[in-house]
């Protein structure tokens, strides 16, 4: 496979994005036409991604650029199965969010061409982040993703909330990026390498007393930057505002896309570049992440209880969910002690994280499709709108209950399998306190998740007219529901897939 073929998904996204911009400029087609083009692009990308994924064997294929300083080829992108998992994820995200956005865009967005093009660009950014193995490339891809996200968040130019959200998001993001960049520069200074493998080698071959002074702050600062992307407490504060202010399809995108990217990068950077620091005294990124996971879960769940706006509620819910997912990252760490090759079962937490993310993709997008249907009809995203929903839209209500159960983590839903693997991995690593806190938080979350279900089924509706559901939303809801159940009921093929995707990380060092 040549380089072009490896980059086929990215290329397709790029072509379609530019085509959308050009078409919009020249012919001003109707919103639906643009939506169809965008969806076609997304689906072709998905197909291409799966094609490349099938081609990529379990080795590493590095894409490199020729360095100007004569150092030879510098690896930039890794086309491995781990990256391919997140590319499939990205293509699915773009396709589903695009589908879910069609009605909303038709009704509310003035420049649909740009909107859809930005969606594709965002998808491209997601893919690039997943592949990046060089700090420069990582930073560029990350900024690309951030900037498209800012633009999408503030796309409702006449809506003060949207503008405000975008501005806050941008300011916060800029600072977070700056912090992360500082971390990058520190690590470059310490090891003289921008490549993740090079950094690991550099750390191993350096004097520990010196390297620690530079590497430890670097790790902390990088985690801050990633924490922003994932919306981990206490770097989450942009998210409730951005989620609430952004156009709802964008909220849906933010809740799954950048979050997954952040995790992809976190896993890659921490395991590839800093395995040596996983569990050494006082330089323990596991400890930082553990603390962050605990406050993230607890804070997200506790504050979610009080939210009156469903989008804001889902912002806190997604914060809490990220906290659970983080346990999966933590659970792999102890296996990395001193750079020894990992032992059997090291990847359970990581597999759990990937499967958790994959289930969460469908759970959250399905939920947002329902939120959108309600919002399109009522014009409001208040939680009160869900009162008596079962009489207005019985199918949506039942589907929503399934999604909520998945968010709580009750079988037979994808959320259950994700939590099972992640918490199971923590218990296997004897992180009983962490697992217990995770479980305890799941109990807290029942309160507000099932609160929505209670409103749908038992509270009387003020308005009992049926809620019309467009075919595209219905499709998203149905396919999400099917997958949420399928991942739980027929878990094995999905498990095989994710564990096939994570093996590459074991061979890295």
């Amino acid at each position, binding site marked *: 496979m040549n380089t072009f073929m490896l980059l086929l998904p990215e290329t397709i996204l790029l072509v379609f994005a530019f085509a959308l911009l050009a078409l919009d400029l020249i012919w001003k087609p109707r919103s639906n036409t643009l939506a169809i083009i965008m969806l076609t692009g997304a689906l072709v990308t998905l197909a291409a991604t799966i094609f490349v994924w099938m081609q990529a064997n379990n080795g590493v294929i590095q894409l490199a650029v020729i360095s100007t300083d004569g150092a030879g080829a510098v690896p930039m992108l890794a086309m491995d199965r781990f990256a391919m998992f997140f590319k499939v994820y990205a293509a699915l995200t773009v396709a589903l969010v695009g589908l879910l956005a069609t009605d909303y865009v038709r009704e509310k967005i003035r420049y649909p061409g740009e909107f859809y093009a930005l969606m594709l660009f965002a998808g491209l950014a997601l893919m690039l982040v997943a592949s990046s193995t060089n700090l420069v490339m990582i930073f560029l891809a990350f900024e690309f993703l951030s900037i498209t996200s800012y633009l999408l968040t503030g796309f409702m130019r006449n809506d003060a909330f949207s503008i405000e959200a975008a*501005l*806050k998001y941008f*300011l*916060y993001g800029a*600072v*977070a990026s700056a*912090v992360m960049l500082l971390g990058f520069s520190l690590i470059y200074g310490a090891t003289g390498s921008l490549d993740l493998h090079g950094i690991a080698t550099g750390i191993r071959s350096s004097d520990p007393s010196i390297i620690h*002074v530079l590497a*430890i*702050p670097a790790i*902390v*600062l990088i985690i*801050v930057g990633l924490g*922003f992307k994932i919306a981990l407490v*206490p*770097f989450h*504060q*942009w998210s*409730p*505002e951005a989620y609430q202010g952004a156009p709802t399809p964008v909220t849906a995108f933010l809740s799954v896309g950048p979050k997954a990217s952040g995790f992809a990068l976190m896993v890659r950077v921490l395991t590839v570049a800093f395995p040596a620091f996983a569990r050494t005294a*006082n*330089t323990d990124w596991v*400890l*930082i992440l553990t*603390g962050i996971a605990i406050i993230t879960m607890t*804070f997200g*769940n*506790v*504050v*979610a*209880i*009080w939210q009156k706006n469903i989008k804001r509620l889902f912002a806190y819910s997604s914060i809490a969910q990220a906290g659970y997912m983080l346990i999966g990252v933590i659970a792999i760490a102890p296996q990395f002690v001193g750079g020894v090759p990992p032992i059997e079962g090291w990847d359970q937490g990581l597999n759990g994280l990937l499967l958790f993310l994959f289930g969460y993709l469908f759970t959250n997008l399905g939920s947002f499709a329902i939120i959108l249907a309600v919002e399109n009809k009522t014009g409001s995203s208040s939680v009160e709108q869900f009162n008596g929903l079962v009489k207005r839209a019985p199918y949506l209500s039942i589907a929503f209950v399934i999604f909520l159960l998945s968010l709580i983590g009750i079988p037979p839903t994808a959320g259950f399998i994700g939590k099972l693997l992640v918490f199971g991995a923590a218990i296997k690593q004897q992180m009983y306190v962490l697992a217990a806190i995770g479980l305890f938080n799941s109990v*807290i979350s029942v*309160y507000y998740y099932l609160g929505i279900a209670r409103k749908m089924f038992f509270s009387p509706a003020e308005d009992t007219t049926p809620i019309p559901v467009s075919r595209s939303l219905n499709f998203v809801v149905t396919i999400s529901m099917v997958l949420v159940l399928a991942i739980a009921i027929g878990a094995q093929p999905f498990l095989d897939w994710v564990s096939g995707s994570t093996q590459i990380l074991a061979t890295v060092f």
Partner: protein
Amino acid sequence: MEKLFALTPYIPLFPLLAFALIVLWANKNNKLSAGLAIAGLGLSTIISWLIAIATIVGGEHVQVEGWSLTIPWLPTGTGVFNMGFAVDGFTAAMLFMVPFVSSLIFIYASEYMEGDSRYARFFAYVSLFVSGMLTLVVADNLLLLFIAWEIMGLCSYLLIGFWFEKDSAKKAGLKAFLTTRVGDVLFFGGMLLLYSQTGTLTFREIFTPAVLERLAEATIWGQPASVVISLLIFGGAVGKSAQFPLHVWLPDAMEGPTPVSAMIHAATMVSAGVYLVARMLPLFAVVPVGSLQWVAIIGAITAFFGATIGIAQNDIKRVLAYSTISQLGYMMIGLGLGGFLAGIFHLLTHSFFKALLFLGSGSVIHAMEHGAHHAHDHETDPQDMMNMGGLANRMKKTYIAYMAGTLALVGIVPFAGFFSKDEILAEAWHQAGGFNFGSIAFWAWLAGLLGAFVTALYMGRQIGLVFLGKPRTKLAEHAVEPGKRMTYPLLVLGFFALTLGFINIPKNVPIIGNGWLHEFAGLIYESTEVLNLEALPLNWGLAGVATIIGLAGFFGGIALYRGHQAGQSDPMVKLLGRPLFTLLKNKYYVDEFYFAVIINPVVKLANFAGKFDYDWVINPIVNFVGNTGKWLSIVSGEFDRVVVDGLGVLGTARFFRWMGKELRYTQTGQVQNYLLVIALVSLSLVGAYLFGLGF
């Protein structure tokens, strides 16, 4: 031709399908339901006949070795339990009879049941019933046979109690179910023992010489295993085929609609018991003096006593019911004396002519009910023969058909019953070897011969009372022949009642002797010391005696009753004397005996146990435990409410709600604050690490 055998599993399938379709879909449409039932069974009949023909023309290879299909069904610890289907000559003979007779009954019922509010349900039940019987016939192992057997048990319960508004029908259904259940339990026990001894329930595997020998040598409770097992299995047959002492349910089963009576008495239910014994006969015959003689003894008792009860009954269907019991006794005599073919030959012929008689009686009842309707008389019992008379003139076709059935039952040359009954009596006579008073076979022969006389007598009585003489009531005066769907099946059955005996005329009869049935169905097992599979020649003397006795009884009965007038006392009273007649009329008080010895004590015991439970011991204990639990739960409830809920659950919940409420305020909406947080957190984390503060 042999490829046809692959269709065997479909034989029971079509009626089952009809049952499912009627229950799930067609039940609102009467015509469609009946059509489905008849079509389903019709298809089965066609396949069955094709298979029967294929077996008959297939030669000895197919008839003895047979065809079988085995499906590994249930993995057991040591192997696999096989289920499957099998066809041999005997099966083929059954396949000729069961679906055909049943479909005639279905056609008949489609008219007979008209106007019934549960018409569709009736056809669903009978379809399932026939499906059960057909499964039983083609089963290659005892378990599948038992399943089919139980399906029939259920259907008989449902159908006998079909008119469950009538208390008597409800009770009769229950009685049939419980009584046959006594036999079923024995059968099931026998099956379990058989499986534990041999590890298989497949007929073919059981009947290999090695397995049979093992069964003869092994002992259970000091008896040869084969004897114990076969007697237990015979227990099942006693229940199902209404043999003494479990015969009591059959007369009461008359409470069901008449076509059901015909089904139960001819094509399905009671035949199953005889079929079971015939099928298992090699097991019965392993030990020369063992279980087989008991079959003959029970059969002889049943044949004679069943017949005698018949002469004192006035209900037209009850007479036939006791006749069935008695005729089943004949079959058991035949089988019990090792005459495999004699038993199954009589099973086949009897099915035809008894179906005919029942349907004929249904026709008569139908006509009488019509008369009742016409005369606005709903007090008079339309089933009581004393209320009939002279119906021959009003119902020609029914009369002709009924006469054919009667002559077949009585055993008049050349009707079917003559040949088959004669074969049984010849078998008995042959086994006894003449007037040998020490031989069971002789007494069985005597019982059979006397029974034949009594049979002729009660049938003559019936003909005289029902068809001859003058109408004794308005009902009989206004009786009208029913329509074609009822009369034509009668005529078809009449034809078979006349001719079916010809399929097995002993070979020594000049010109027409053929021994045909014997050749294709009678040789499927090996002959042994007590199991006689050889054809017996016609014993002219015996046949003559039997014919004379039959004619004497028959014409005696007609002569006694043809001039019977309304209000006269039964001539039989004078003939037998009042005490004996009363004894017969009350069926030897067997029901009363059961009530006195079993049912009432059991009810008393149940009452006592109930009292024990409710008033004396168990309930007070339960109440005490319950009350204690109640008090405990009140205490622990309070503990929960105050301590766990108040401080624990609600406290926790309140704490987190409060925490959430307070933490909300961290979201100030001021981006400056947010950036301050990120800066402070980053700095403090880095500082904490760098200066080794740790966490």
